């Protein structure tokens, strides 16, 4: 994430605000590479749960980078 992150951040924040209003969790499966995903989403309060959407024996997405599952828990 570099230029344009203000717009991207605004789009993500909107969803986070909705989750906060309901006091429920927000989550994302990020297609971006690990360091990019963790850098961008971590700043917004998401934490990686250490499991990727490409994990699991026989998963047709096996071998693909990224796909971190990240959560921002309810406050």
């Amino acid at each position: 994430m570099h230029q344009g992150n203000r717009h991207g951040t605004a789009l993500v924040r909107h969803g986070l605000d909705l989750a906060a209003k309901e006091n429920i969790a927000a989550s994302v499966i990020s297609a971006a590479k690990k360091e990019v995903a963790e850098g961008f989403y971590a700043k917004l309060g998401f934490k990686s749960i250490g499991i990727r959407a490409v994990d699991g024996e026989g998963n047709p997405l096996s071998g693909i980078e990224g796909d971190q599952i990240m959560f921002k828990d309810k406050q």
Partner: protein
Amino acid sequence: MSHNEYFVTYQQHSQTNQAYYRHLVGSYAHMDSLSKTTEATIRLAHADDQFIMASIAARANFDDDLFGKIIHPYREQYPEDMHIFWLKKFRKAWHNPYNLFLVSTVQHNGSELITGMAQWSRRGEYFNEYQALLKECLEPALPVNRAADPEMENLIERSGSYLPDVWTGKQQSGWRQISYSVDIFKAIDSSVGV
């Protein structure tokens, strides 16, 4: 309207939209600095925005390993077809009112320009009820996506059953970001889930 008539209409509409999209990108290509100074306005997406949203997602993911190289190996030959992948997803998801489509916009020379999109999904019992109803819906009628490998086009859906069951218990109800792309300002990042 017959299928043939539909596709002729789609092609005309598509060409107009592509021209509009190229105009947007062209008018912004030299304006990267604007992104540093202009705050985005976030609004709900209209159905008319679907094409631009899909085009932004296609451009943002053009060289992505999964969405570009694996799912769309013929994208160099048919670059203007790649948006059909997202257009199909958006049209299907549009029917579930627990999907929320947002666009980020800026005002420039009196016009609104869309700079990015996000799909947030309010997961929970009601979302699932709508999804169950939608299983009977026909696939959106769209032209063949020639940029895609037909065997890879539904790769994400096929992987869905392998998703770890982490959305249970207190996490069962929540907002999930399904799709997210910001492109015009070269902020290439995206995410797509199921």
